[in-house]
């Protein structure tokens, strides 16, 4: 389509402008380049038994899986201080127990798995653990084995699986059975105010966090966290 415009300029002269338009047959590669960094969140993609619903954030090259979790398995060493059981991650002498810390109201904890589709399998590219407040600010929990960007130092496990469901399942299984040690540990004081247990006759009850929980964590902002679906 072509159209002609006659423009009267401020100096009184006339200018003719010819405008030509045509629809471009944009190739897939151009579209892919333009949308390379675009991702799409999809909620409730599948359910992992024992953990719950999993949300996805799908990118061109990878998929980020978010699992809001209601507990953190804390297989670590603990010590009873003033009738409260607290973690002693750096200890080699205190009692080792597989306690489960229940996430309290007001705190959201999200376990994240990044997967990549290979030719005939799906690979786990990493696991992350974020805490979030009501405004979706991200925080690093006062735990060892967590990098500054909340990537979990998981230890070795089979990260190549048949599909994404198996990748998320394998990651959560590793998360559930791994022992927490002193690697990447900061101060134990914050951990011991955050993760507290009351021994009862039959079990160990999770106690409330001592103080404002966000003050015991480090605020985190990363490109990956922006993709987390809470």
């Amino acid at each position, binding site marked *: 389509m072509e159209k002609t415009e006659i423009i009267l300029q401020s100096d009184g002269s006339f200018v003719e402008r010819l405008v030509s338009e045509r629809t471009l047959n944009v190739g897939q590669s151009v579209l892919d380049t333009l949308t390379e960094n675009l991702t799409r969140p999809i909620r409730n993609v599948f359910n992992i038994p024992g953990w719950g619903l999993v949300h996805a954030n799908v990118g061109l090259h990878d998929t980020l899986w978010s699992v809001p979790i209601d507990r953190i398995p804390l297989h670590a060493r603990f010590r009873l201080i003033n009738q409260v059981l607290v973690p002693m991650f750096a200890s080699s002498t205190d009692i080792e127990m597989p306690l489960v810390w229940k996430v309290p109201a007001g705190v959201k904890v999200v376990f994240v798995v990044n997967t990549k589709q290979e030719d005939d399998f799906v690979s786990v590219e990493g696991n992350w653990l974020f805490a979030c407040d009501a*405004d979706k*600010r991200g925080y690093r929990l006062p735990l060892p084995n967590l990098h*500054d*960007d909340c990537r979990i130092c998981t230890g070795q496990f089979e990260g190549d699986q048949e599909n994404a469901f198996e990748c998320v399942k394998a990651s959560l299984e590793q998360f559930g059975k791994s022992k927490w040690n002193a690697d*990447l540990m900061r101060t134990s004081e914050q951990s011991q105010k955050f993760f507290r247990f009351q021994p009862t006759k039959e079990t160990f009850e999770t106690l409330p966090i001592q103080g404002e929980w966000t003050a015991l964590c480090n*605020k*985190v*902002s990363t490109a990956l966290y922006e993709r987390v679906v809470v």
Partner: protein
Amino acid sequence: MKTITVKYGVDQITKQVEDDFTFGDLQDSDQFKAALGFGDNTKALVDGIEQNRETVIPAGTTVRIETAANTKA
């Protein structure tokens, strides 16, 4: 003086800084750290591109601070 906007997560602050204020100055600034809550291990991005610490921040720029990954475990 010049005005810059700094974002960290969902929080942001707009502030006047000296004309020679660099990205490194921003990353080390206790005032910005206290206001936005970021720590020592960060990177500064403009339009998604990581900036050098020595570069002077142009007036009116919006800088996004991100938590950097550890250099070693």
